[in-house]
């Protein structure tokens, strides 16, 4: 186990608390830097999606994990960023202008959503953000002069300083990686300054936050704004990655995927957003393979266990019809969320911490280390 002897306030302020982090993150960065030259096109593409999802995950962590608000409307923020980029590109605006613009514009919408959200809590806030998402979807479909309605919009190859950056080039990969890293660094900075602490304070006790001089309403709005800005930036990259966007890509299901990212990854740490993003990006091809191969496997299995060929093929057909049933993906997502909330509420990152502690303290690990010891009643009234 590592014991850190502190002699300086800076040791608690630093992003990397001790030298061990420097090594592990340098190695990670090195691996990521080499990846596009080693990996095939498909895996590189998957990694780009991981970066984009992780960026959105971070934005959600700020709003949900740290400020304690709720949102099932982040697909709409992503859409606003994506459409802003597509529209600007079609009108000859360069990337260096429309990329920040996508963030700023989405951030302003986020602030506008934040104001009505001040009066809402819990499930009501969830419903409000769902409605916001639905409204944006509707606007995208109807406002044809700008969005081309259901026909969608095509994006040309991204151009950065006169250089074409195709969506499956290493250049695009590094752009997305850089955006993710910068977003993570900015968020870490925020969390170690008064604003970040105010967010956490609001999450844990609005009453106490108010009494410590935190303008709860202003900070909630700020949190919505920051979160939306980051998602808007991610939206720009997302649009370029897909090269085609249309309203039906930014539905509630996408917002749910984003929520899954942070629930599965872990809601108390930025690591969670990245782990969750890896999970969600990898599960999709996994589910597709499963959908294609599982019925055949089941059929074979039934056959092996003694059923005759017609019965086996009947079972196989049935399995196939279940596997291709509409809404199955949503159901599986639902199961995953429920499973994690019940059995692993701190997410993958929480699990990782437990495993790490187990090895650090090896023979002495106590099974109850992470059990909540005792909780005290908090009343709704300001007693």
């Amino acid at each position, binding site marked *: 186990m590592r014991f850190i002897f502190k002699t300086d306030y800076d040791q608690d302020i630093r992003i990397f608390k001790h030298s061990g982090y420097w090594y592990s993150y340098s190695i990670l960065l090195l691996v990521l830097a080499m990846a596009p030259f080693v990996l095939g096109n498909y895996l590189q593409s998957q990694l780009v999606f991981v970066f984009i999802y992780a960026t959105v995950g971070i934005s959600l962590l700020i709003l949900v994990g740290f400020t304690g608000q709720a949102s099932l409307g982040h697909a709409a923020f992503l859409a606003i960023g994506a459409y802003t980029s597509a529209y600007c590109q079609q009108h000859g605006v360069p990337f260096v202008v429309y990329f920040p613009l996508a963030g700023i514009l989405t951030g302003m919408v986020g602030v506008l959503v934040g104001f009505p959200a001040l009066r809402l809590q819990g499930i009501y806030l969830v419903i409000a953000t769902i409605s916001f998402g639905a409204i944006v979807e509707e606007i995208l479909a109807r406002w044809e002069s700008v969005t081309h309605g259901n026909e969608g919009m095509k994006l040309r190859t991204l151009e950065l300083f006169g250089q074409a950056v195709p969506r499956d080039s290493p250049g695009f990969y590094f752009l997305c990686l850089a955006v993710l890293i910068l977003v993570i660094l900015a968020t870490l900075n925020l969390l170690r*300054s008064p604003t970040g602490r105010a967010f956490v304070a609001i999450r844990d006790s609005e009453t106490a936050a108010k009494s410590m001089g935190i303008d709860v309403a202003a900070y909630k709005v700020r949190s919505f704004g920051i979160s939306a800005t980051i998602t808007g930036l991610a939206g720009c990259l997302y649009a370029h990655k897909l090269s085609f966007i249309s309203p039906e890509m930014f539905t509630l299901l996408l917002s749910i995927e984003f929520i899954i990212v942070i629930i599965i990854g872990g809601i108390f740490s930025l690591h969670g957003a990245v782990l969750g993003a890896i999970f969600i990006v990898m599960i999709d091809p996994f589910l597709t393979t499963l959908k294609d191969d599982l019925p055949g496997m089941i059929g074979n299995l039934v056959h092996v266990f003694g059923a005759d060929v017609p019965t086996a093929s009947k079972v196989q057909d049935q399995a196939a019809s279940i596997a291709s049933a509409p809404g199955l993906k949503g159901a599986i997502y639902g199961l995953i969320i429920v499973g994690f909330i019940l059995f692993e509420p701190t997410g993958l990152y929480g699990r990782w911490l437990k495993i790490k502690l187990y090895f650090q303290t090896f023979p002495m690990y106590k099974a109850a280390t992470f059990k909540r010891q005792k909780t*005290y009643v908090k009343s709704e009234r300001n007693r």
Partner: protein
Amino acid sequence: MSFLVAENISLQFGGLKAVDQVNFAVERGEIFTIIGPNGAGKTSIFNLISRFYNPTSGRLFFDGEEFTSAPPHRIAKMGIARTFQNIELFDNTTVLSNLLVGRHCHATTNLVQELLFLPAVRRAEFEHRFRVEQVIELLDLEPYRDKLISGLPYGVRKVIELARALCSEPKLMLLDEPSSGLNVEETDDMSFWIRDIRDELGITVLMVEHDMNLVSRVSDRVLALNYGRELATGTPSEVQSHPEVVAAYLGT
């Protein structure tokens, strides 16, 4: 004018008068205690001063300035800090970050500076941390600095709440039942700290307390309430022997 003045304040919840035409004035440097049976309206008075509730009528003054309609987040900046009867800490963070939140009313940096963590932010963080460390030392909280609140015992939480309030460097401290739930030793410590806060830091204290032993040991003056109405004000012994107060506590 006195330091904190409540002028005819009333607070009504539906038909219930939680606070009914109460007047009191706390002098600078005083330890002023509000006593009264459960439901007398003591916490409600604190919530009025914290501006969580709007008084139905009456006015409030602090340091010569009226704040009857100030927004709640202005109160800390004016120099009024408080603790809560049922501990309101930020449970999922460390003691240190709880105390740093206490410094929020002294935050000077803006969002852009913070996102980039410019040198100004780092300097401000050092300053906040220095002040926090002074409070940690005063209240003997060194062993808990990096602990999560959710794992700490009740008595320690009570002290941390006091510490968090002190970190805002208040001029007036509102303590809502500082000794409730504490054992004899912890109550003793608390009474010393309350005196220290006043004597060494020069902070005026307004508190709500049930433990009459503690009340008579530390308070200069006492206000007794019942059903939201003022029964008596005076020195601890005067109030304790006041016939109406005795009646209110023993039942008539």
